[in-house]
């Protein structure tokens, strides 16, 4: 008796169906990637601004717990970094620790295209269209109980402001150029002395950088939540 065993055959419709399924999966993946690339990254605002320096040498530093919403990241520089950057022997144990908070958004981004020169249209330059990235610099001088010398000048105003949360007084120095210009906040507490520096920048669409109330709130947050 002869038994004929039919070998399994791959039916053409299976091949066609499989190919179509694979093609559809590829299309779905590609479309998802393309659409996803056009969407902005989800904004992750840390609950406490000190998370911005987590894992750096400034992690345990007394620092702002609040920063403006436009701040997305910070760069910490400790005395050894600064000393190395200077390239000349300095007393490292008396150097401050720096945190630079970068502000996000088109008005805060650097707009330089090459070095300054004739390639920069005069009208654009005069309108404030060529400007650096906006940031806020925070410096902590531990074991220091003094402030830097007070600035002076025709366009300088110096006022003392009471910080409502921490109860400290902060010296606010403004170089007030028609509402724009650098702003310095300096204060001391039982641990050291501190400085916040920002610039209210003039741009064609308005202003860049942190506002004075935002800088004051940052300063107030340094000691307010440390307990």
């Amino acid at each position: 008796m002869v038994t004929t065993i039919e070998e399994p055959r791959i039916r053409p419709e299976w091949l066609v169906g499989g190919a179509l399924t694979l093609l559809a999966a590829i299309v779905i993946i590609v479309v998802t990637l393309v659409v996803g690339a056009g969407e902005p990254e989800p904004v992750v605002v840390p609950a406490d601004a000190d998370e911005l320096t987590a894992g750096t040498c400034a992690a345990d530093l007394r620092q702002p717990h609040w920063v403006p919403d436009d701040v997305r990241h910070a760069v910490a520089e400790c005395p050894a970094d600064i000393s190395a950057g200077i390239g000349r022997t300095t007393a490292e144990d008396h150097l401050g620790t720096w945190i630079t908070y970068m502000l996000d958004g088109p008005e805060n981004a650097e707009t330089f295209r090459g070095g300054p020169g004739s390639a920069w249209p005069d009208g654009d330059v005069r309108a404030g269209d060529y400007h650096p990235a906006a940031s806020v610099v925070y410096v902590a001088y531990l074991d220091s109980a003094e402030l830097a010398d007070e600035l002076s000048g025709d366009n300088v105003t110096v006022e003392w402001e009471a910080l409502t949360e921490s109860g400290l007084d902060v010296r606010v120095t403004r170089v007030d150029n028609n509402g724009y210009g650098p702003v310095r906040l300096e204060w001391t507490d039982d641990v050291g002395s501190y400085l916040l520096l920002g610039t209210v920048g003039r741009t064609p669409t308005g202003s860049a950088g942190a506002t004075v109330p935002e800088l004051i709130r940052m300063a107030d947050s340094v000691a307010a939540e440390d307990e």
Partner: protein
Amino acid sequence: MPSTRTWLQAGGGTVVVALIAAAVVQAVNSTAMWVSNDPVGECGATSGGAVVAAQNVLSASTGLAPVDGSWDDGSTVATEAFQAYNGLPVSGCVDSGTWTTMRALLVSVCDPEFDCRGPDHRVRYAGPEGVREAYFAENDCDWGSYVLPGVAGSPVASHTIIALSRDAVTEIECEG
């Protein structure tokens, strides 16, 4: 008739008072140096130590290079951009208002009550191509510019302190 001892005490006291007064005047002049500088640029000096100081700030704030103590078109454009962003009248001239604005950007890298000897003030900007920074020294003798390699151009040498107040590009050594 005052005795010799009295004269010696009076003379010694006078010397001490004079030394204290000189120190105070020196400190005041050093602090005020930035706002009392003569204009730089098309409206003033076009070479020298004050030009180096202005160019050093502009190198950090606008990317101007080189810092060589010679005023040029790039320095003028950089000054105009600096003035516009900081709300100053745009003139291309580093006048007293511009000097004061520049001075406010200098942050001590050193405890305010301690003399770190050497470069002790810094201007820092972060750009997409990296950090731009300039250093200055404020010791007991004078303000000085400290220009980093890659930015300094002859006759300005990097890693030296260039006197701000001198007419020519002159290196100074502050004892601290």
